Structures are given as C-alpha cells and as structure tokens.
C-alpha cells in the first residue's frame, strides 16, 4: 500500500509542480471559453454588419414590377432606414444574361458583394437567385431570403386590394417561443440556450480532461520505457500496482484541475450580476440549469470511470510503442473512439432523447461524455442512467486488467512494435 502511495505521490506531485500545470489551470478556462464562444461572438459581429453588407449588392429586377425597389428599401431598413440602399437595375428577360455578366464583373472587382436576380419565378413565389462572394454568411442569406419573401407577399396583398399599411401590419409578425423546462423536480427557468451551453460545456470539459490526461498517462508510460527506468521500478513494485498508481496519480491531477476550474466558475457564477454588469451585459439571462445533487454525483462518477477506461487503453498503447512517433500512430484507434462521442455532439444536442443519444450514452466508450451531456440538458430515465454507469464501470475494470497484462510485458520490450497477435499473446502469457 505504501508503495502504491509512493507511485501515486510521484505521479501527482511531479505534474502539479510543473509549469505546464500552473499555466493550464490559470489560463485553461480562458482558452476553453474562447474555443466555445468565439464562433458565437464572431457570428454576432457578422450579423451586426449585415445590413451594410446587404446594401452593397445589385438587384437585377426582371419582373417588370417595383419588387426590386421594395426589396432594396427593405434591406436598407425600410423607409425610415438609414444608409445607402442596394442598387436596383430593371432589366428585360432578354438582356438579363448581359446584365448578370456586368454584375459578375462588379463582384469580382470587389466593388459589389453580389447580385440578386428577381424574375417571374420570384413573382410566382417559387425562387430568387443570388450570386456573390458572401453566400456563406448564413445570417445574411436568410435575411435576404426573408426580405424577398415578405415583399412578394406584400405585393400580392396589395394586388388583392389591401391597403399597404394593412398588409404591412399583417406580415410583420414575429413570434418568439418562450420555453419552460418541466422535470420531476419542478418547473425551471427554461432558457434553452443556457441548458444547451451548459451541456456543451460539461461535455467538452470532460472530453478535454479525459483526452489530455489520458495522453498524459500514455506519455508517462512511454517515458518510463524510453528512459529505461521501468525495470528498476518493476523490481520493487508489481506492474499492475505501478499502472494503477500511475492512472490514479495522473487522474488526480486532472481532477484537481477540474475542481479548481469548477470552483472558480462557481465563484464567477455567484457574482455573475456584478461581473456581467461590468461588461454592460447585466440583463443576460445566464442561468445554469439545476441538475441536482444526484445529477452532479453521476457526472462525477462518469468522469472517474470514463477516465479509468481511457487511461487504461492509453497506458496499453504507451507500453507497446518505443517512440513518440510510434505513439502518434498507435494512439489513433483510442483517440477515434473518444472522438466519436464528440462527433455526434450536435445530433445529441438537437435530440437528447433520440435513438442515437440513447445508444451513445450507453456504449462504454462514449457514455462518459454523452451521458453527462444528456444529464445536464434534461432528465434521463433511471434505467438508462444506471445501465450506462454499469457498462462504463465494467469496461473500466476490463480495460485496466487488459492494460496491466500488456503493460507488464510491454514495458520491458524494446525494438519492433508488436502486432495485434503478439499483443494478444502478451495478454495470455503467464
């Protein structure tokens, strides 16, 4: 027991003392937050300059009506809107091709962002065409589409004899859906975005911690092998104890970091109103969903056993390779397994109780990430929850056993990287 503690202490303190740990613990959340929220911030910024972007387009109106003018002024913010409007060019169907060529030249010479073609199909309510340099700006494109749609509707209403003011009132409907989450614990503030973000944050945090510290275990094994220190150590302590000590020691480092991060997050969250008002964002509905004590404990257990599972696999990989390059290759299957759970993140977020979510939250390799994600987004049936936990626990024990068999032999093997069949022989060796 003392020896196991000695191994754990070494693995723990050598890492916690390192500069890397200090930097990651201090700046990790900043980086993490940037990764998570930077795309959203950038999108928001793009949105802010949307009208300006959309007013730098040419509208080729082949409808023979004033639809082009209407769309242009709608894009410029309506009659009261400020700023320059899009250029409207009325063309006949025959001269449309030539007009498109001219517009294309304008776009390629950067004086315009794109051009919109309105024709009989648009009037018929079927389609409008847009070509430009900014077609990937999703928000702009949907705004453009909406503007055309609304103007066609308005025209039709006016054609049916409605007053322009009446038809404008009829079409300016904008319903926003307010949601509330109902759980067995009662009614909670159902800001779907907050639940969403919280779920993603939990999943990403678990994923990154398991990934980083799993690799850390692998590197530690590789280091012992490369530096040839393994043999001395193994003459004093059994391979399985060395492995368990390493996994527990490294895992504790990850846990320490998580606790510091979560603790800091908690403090920030408690003072969120003061912090947010500093950034002129006092009114933001930033509320973390209440997952309850059981939920929290479950997430913790999934992290622990998920880490044990992956750390075992990574350790086994480390024991079979001789160099960093070989490790890069050999770790791929394990990394892919881990990636699978993150790959389907979007599908799970969109449908947390769907078939895919249920399957992925039960399979041992993805459950440690997917189940906490589901837990933080809503309720999970008890059977599924405990079934998944059992599957992860059993797999963690199996992975540790397997790893210690491979580790015992692999740690003293240098030279050629073993194939699958040879590794199987190691496992069955006495």
């Amino acid at each position, binding site marked *: 027991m003392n*020896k196991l503690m000695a191994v754990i202490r070494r693995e723990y303190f050598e890492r916690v003392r390192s500069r890397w740990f200090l930097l990651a613990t201090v700046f990790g959340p900043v980086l993490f937050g940037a990764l998570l929220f930077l795309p959203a911030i950038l999108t928001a910024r793009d949105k802010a300059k949307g009208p300006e972007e959309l007013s730098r387009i040419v509208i080729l109106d082949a409808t023979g009506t004033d639809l082009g003018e209407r769309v242009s002024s709608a894009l410029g913010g309506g009659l009261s809107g400020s700023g320059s409007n899009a250029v409207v060019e009325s063309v006949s169907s025959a001269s449309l091709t030539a007009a498109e060529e001219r517009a294309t030249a304008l776009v390629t010479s950067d004086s315009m962002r794109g051009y919109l073609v309105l024709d009989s199909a648009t009037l018929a309510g079927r389609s409008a065409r847009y070509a430009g340099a900014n077609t990937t700006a999703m928000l702009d494109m949907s705004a453009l589409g909406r503007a055309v749609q609304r103007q066609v509707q308005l025209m039709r209403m006016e054609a049916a004899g409605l007053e322009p003011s009446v038809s404008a009132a009829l079409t300016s409907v904008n319903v926003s859906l307010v949601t509330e989450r109902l759980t067995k614990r009662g009614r909670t503030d159902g800001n779907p975005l907050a639940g969403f973000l919280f779920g993603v944050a939990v999943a990403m945090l678990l994923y990154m911690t398991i990934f980083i510290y799993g690799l850390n275990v692998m590197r530690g094994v590789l280091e012992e092998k490369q530096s*040839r220190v393994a043999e001395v150590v193994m003459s004093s302590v059994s391979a399985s104890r060395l492995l368990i000590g390493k996994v527990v020691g490294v895992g504790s480092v990850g846990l320490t970091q998580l606790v510091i991060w979560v603790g800091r997050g908690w403090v920030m969250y408690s003072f969120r109103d003061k912090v947010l008002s500093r950034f002129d964002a006092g009114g933001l509905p930033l509320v973390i969903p209440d997952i309850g004590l059981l939920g929290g404990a479950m997430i913790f257990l999934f992290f622990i056993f998920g880490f044990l599972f992956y750390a075992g696999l990574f350790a086994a990989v480390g024991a079979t390779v001789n160099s960093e390059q070989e490790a890069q290759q050999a770790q791929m299957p394990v990394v892919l397994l881990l990636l699978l759970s993150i790959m389907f993140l979007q599908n799970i977020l969109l449908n947390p109780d769907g078939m895919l979510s249920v399957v992925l939250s039960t399979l041992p390799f993805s459950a440690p990430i997917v189940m906490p994600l589901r837990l933080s987004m809503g309720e999970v049936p008890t059977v599924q929850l405990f079934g998944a936990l059992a599957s992860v626990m059993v797999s963690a024990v199996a992975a540790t056993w397997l790893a210690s068999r491979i580790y015992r032999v692999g740690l003293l093997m240098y030279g050629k990287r073993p194939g699958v069949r040879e590794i199987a022989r190691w496992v069955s060796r006495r």
Partner: protein
Amino acid sequence: MTEPAVAIRQVVKRYDGHVAVRDLSLTVPRGTVYGLLGPNGAGKTTSIRMLLNIIAPDEGDIRVLGRPNDDPDIVDRIGYLPEERGLYRKMQVRRVLRFLGELKGLSGKDADRRIDSWLEKLGLKNGSEDWGAAKVDELSRGMQQKVQFIGSLLHEPELVILDEPFSGLDPINAQALKDTVLDLRKQGRTVIFSTHIMDNAERMCDSVCIIARGEVVLDGRVTDVQSSHATRLVALAFTEPPSTAVRAVLSDRSLVARLDDSDRTLEAELAPDAQAPALLTRLVSAGAQLERFELVRPSLHRIFLERVGATGVEAGMSGHG
C-alpha cells in the same frame, strides 16, 4: 546453517520462438560475490529478471533469502542495478532517490538521511555544490550512473544484483564500483553480478557460474574451477634469445603441443603425455638461460573459451544479455 542467498532449481523460460533458459539450477551462498558469466544472449538477464520476479518462469522454483521469490517482503531486501539503466530525466536527483527508496519500503525521512551520506560518499555533494538538487537531465553520464547505483543500495539490501555493472562505466566509476562491491562483501552482503568481462569476474568473485544457451556450463568457487582445469600451460621467459638447441626442444611435439610466442613471454602448452619437470630438464640441458618457468593457472577467460567455445552464442539471439 541458514539457507543460501539464492537457490534456483530447474528453471525453464520459453519465449515464443526459442528457449531462453533451459533447466537452470544454481546456488549462491550468503556473503559471497557471485559472478554470472556468459556471452550475450546466454540468458543472464532473463535469469536475473526471473530471480527478481519481474517475469515468471515457465517451470522450476526460485527461493531468495530463504523465501519463495514472489514473497512481497523479499523485494525490499534486494537491490537491483539493471543493465538497461535509466532514471526519470526531468526529476530532481533527490526526489528520484527518495522515490526509489520508498519503493523499497523506506520512509521518506530515512531515505533523505541516507541519500545525503551517499551523495557525499560518491562525490556528488560537497561544501560548494550539491548535485542532489539538480535535475537528472543536468548530470553527466558518469554522475547519473552513480545516482543509479545509490538508488539500488539506498535501502541497504542483503542481496545486491548487478546486471553488467561495468558496461559503459569510465575507469574511475568502475573502480568506485569495485570498491563498493568489496565493501558490501565485508559487510556480509551477497552480491551477484553478471558480466561477459572475465577479467573483472576473476578478480572480484568468490564463485562463478558460466551459462551459455540458457544452460549452466560450469559452476563453483573460482579457485576450484581453476584447479579443476589442471594446468597444461607453462609460461617461459629467457634472459637471452633461445638458441637453436632450445628451439628444437620447444618444437618437440611429444613435449609441447602448441607454442604461443606472440608475447614477450612464451606460452607452451604441454603435450598430453608430457610432464612439466621433463620439459624443464630438457630445456636446462639444452643450455637455456631461463628467467621464468611457471605453471600458470588457467584464466577464467581461457576456461570460458574452452567450455563455451565459439558456438556459445546462439545465432539470432539478441537483446536480453
């Protein structure tokens, strides 16, 4: 009488393609320096690893210090310096040593005290500098070897196993190692070391065991081994160059089977039926001006070559010495 330090009985270890150790039996008495000799690939390291319970034998039985070698308390009484040496490179020397000590059941406090005295003893710490505070990385190779050596002796083991301890040592460290081994014997500890350098073994060991192809070829006290190989070698030296008459005696095939005069002293191997006094008489009567006429004990090196021969190294075996 206490049990021997090590008793290995009919141990066999097979690997996928070959037999690394076949039917190995040997006994190491307590308080002796024991040499495990053999060419590379003879099974020395495999035997040592089995002895230390790092790998398990397929057959046979190993007892160490009177207990089965898988007794968990036994490992704390053994010190081991493997052939493949290495330490945690990024760790501070003192911390590495404390860790190695703790793995042998030492308390941190005891370890720290002993580390200081060892560092001073091996010149890694003095009034002006203390390498114990440096990282392993920052040490020269020679210093790292000393640290490794300290690591295997820190817990004052009763049995010390050194696998090829002289490989890669500079002459100064090699001497320090020899002195320490002799110190250990004085303290009544048992030292086993493997080597393929016969010279060292001959000078330091009380007993030796020569293994080749995973089998014991020869085993016993060094003096017994040497006397059992009754000497047929005579070292000769003359005060003046030998005359034609003397040369004629030396080339008499009924007296001298083989003559090696590559050196300043001649070495004559006696013919099967010839006796040394007869050769001496013949030489003197031929008028030889003898400076030296000595029956030489065969060196371990010679015995080794004689018993193991050039075929001692099995083709294709490599890696584990």
